């Protein structure tokens, strides 16, 4: 039995301690935001936060994160009340198939929690480990810049240039 703290709620899960966190989240806790892409730490689709840092949940044995704070995309907001990161992604329509997006949001969230005024170059660099096979990178970058501005309480008129440039 493992005790996992996910999105502020404590769960007892009965799994082999070596089970990847991703499987526990999806199969046992029915939190299907994090996706399985490669299972090898190469694509980022499974990215979640542990103690504020972005990790590949596919390569994180559940036993290593007992007692630590796990946050998934479900912890960023709900459909009715999306958080700033989710709002920004919706505003910028930054998804094609959407498979990579939960991972993108979690890595971006970790960056902005550590560095609220991250520059566009920081965002680009931080998201480097996450792949998007649909090629929506430019919109994703804009969405994260927008999320940064939303979190800092900026309105649409004084957004940073990268977020303000039109869609396309």
């Amino acid at each position, binding site marked *: 039995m493992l005790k996992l703290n996910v999105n502020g709620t404590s769960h007892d899960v009965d799994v082999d*301690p070596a089970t990847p966190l991703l499987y526990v989240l999806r199969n046992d806790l029915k939190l299907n935001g994090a996706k399985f892409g490669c299972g090898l*730490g190469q694509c980022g689709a499974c990215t979640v936060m542990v103690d504020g840092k972005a990790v*590949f949940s596919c*390569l*994180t*044995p559940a*036993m*290593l994160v007992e007692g630590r704070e796990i946050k998934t995309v479900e912890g960023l907001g709900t459909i009715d009340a999306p958080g700033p990161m989710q709002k920004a992604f919706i505003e910028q329509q930054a998804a094609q198939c959407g498979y990579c997006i939960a991972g993108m949001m979690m890595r971006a969230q970790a960056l902005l929690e550590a560095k609220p005024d991250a520059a566009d170059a920081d965002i680009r*660099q931080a998201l*480097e480990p996450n792949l998007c096979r649909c090629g929506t990178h430019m919109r994703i970058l804009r969405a994260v810049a927008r999320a940064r501005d939303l979190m800092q309480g900026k309105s649409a008129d004084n957004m940073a240039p990268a977020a303000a440039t039109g869609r396309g």
Partner: protein
Amino acid sequence: MKRFWIGVLILIVVCLAGFAVYAWKPAIDPIEPPQRTSFDQALIEKGAVLASVGNCTACHTKPGGKSFAGGLAVPTPFGTIYSTNITPDPKTGIGRWSEAAFSRAMREGVERDGDHLYPAFPFDHFTLVSDEDNKALYAYLMTRHAVESRPPANELTFPLNLRFVLAGWKLLFFHKGAYREDTAQSAEWNRGAYLVEGLGHCGACHTPRNALGAERKGAHLAGGEAEGWDAFALDRSSSAPVPWTHDSLDAYLRQGWHADHGVANGPMAEVTGNLGRLPDSDMSAIATYLISRMSEPTPERAAAAEDIRKKLSIDQGGTPIPASATTGSPTSRGGAIYQAACATCHDGSRPQPFGGIDFHLSSTIAAREPQNAINVVLFGLPATSGRESPIMPGFAATLTDDQVADLLGYLRETYAQKPAWADAKTKIADTRSGKYRVSVGPSDGIERSPDNVGAKD
């Protein structure tokens, strides 16, 4: 008695005067920056290959910056030195350097204006480079894009911030001179020695340094340090579980990995990324020379290597899964972490370089010091931009210091059959906190991704 003191005084004055004469180097007159057309194309191309042997770009390019424009911070035990701009910019680069000034810098470590250069620039090796090769290097560098960029001032402690002090260093440790053939050895061996000891400056990282930062003569290629990574021994004390051969070394240096040894990482990735451009004959010569330095493996080492080969051919399924990473002995906790987080790649079916190395073969796990293992576990191996490459995720955010220590202990005992490294824990903490600085780059090293994505040249 008075006469004695006068004598001492005169002696001191004479010595100081002698030192001043030795230390003083004249400026070499600036020239009008030469036209590109004044250099022969074949010479420029030869220079390009030589520049990759010298790995010039690694130090003289700042991540994300323009090639050869300098400004890279090189941390030394004495402070930080910033690499210089060696593009042909007349104001901030070497645009006004004549070939004679360039050759003198290579041969003696002296700037055009007569200032002594710090030995972070490995003139103690470059002194061996032939006039002919210097000519080609000069042609290559003088035909790069001129970039106007002045590197920050060095941050060194007194008295090392005074350049004439370097003349004293040279007096103690520097031997100027061209490469001298060893007639007892083959032409190929001599070619290899010339490249390795001269322009290749392998010893700059792979030889330990003394308190004054000079390579220890008695420990040539016995293993050193570079940018937070241990540069493994290239002499008979090599930690490679399966001894290097001419062919494995040749292939490793050319492609950046070998099935018996794994993937080049850290600053070595830049080196192998560059060496891929060498003609086959030079690559083979380098391997010939280095193998002779490592000398024939002892019968015990050869037998141990045979054992490993046998193990690898049978051992397919891996060891049974230990139960818990939180209870039991450190070794069993480490084993649990290995099985759950590492074995997918390191004990999987994909061959190298895209699959991970079996740790029986790893010099890193068999090495004297844990530093490289710590670096790889915490920071992994970032992907190269724009092409397929080996990659490993870092585990800094997943594993605590204790967990990394347990894992390393398990790997040591299981794969290298050596006791866990005694000082691993402090080193893990210092590496994670950044107190101990480590440079992390992709496996080809050259692109220095992700900073360099979109670099203009």
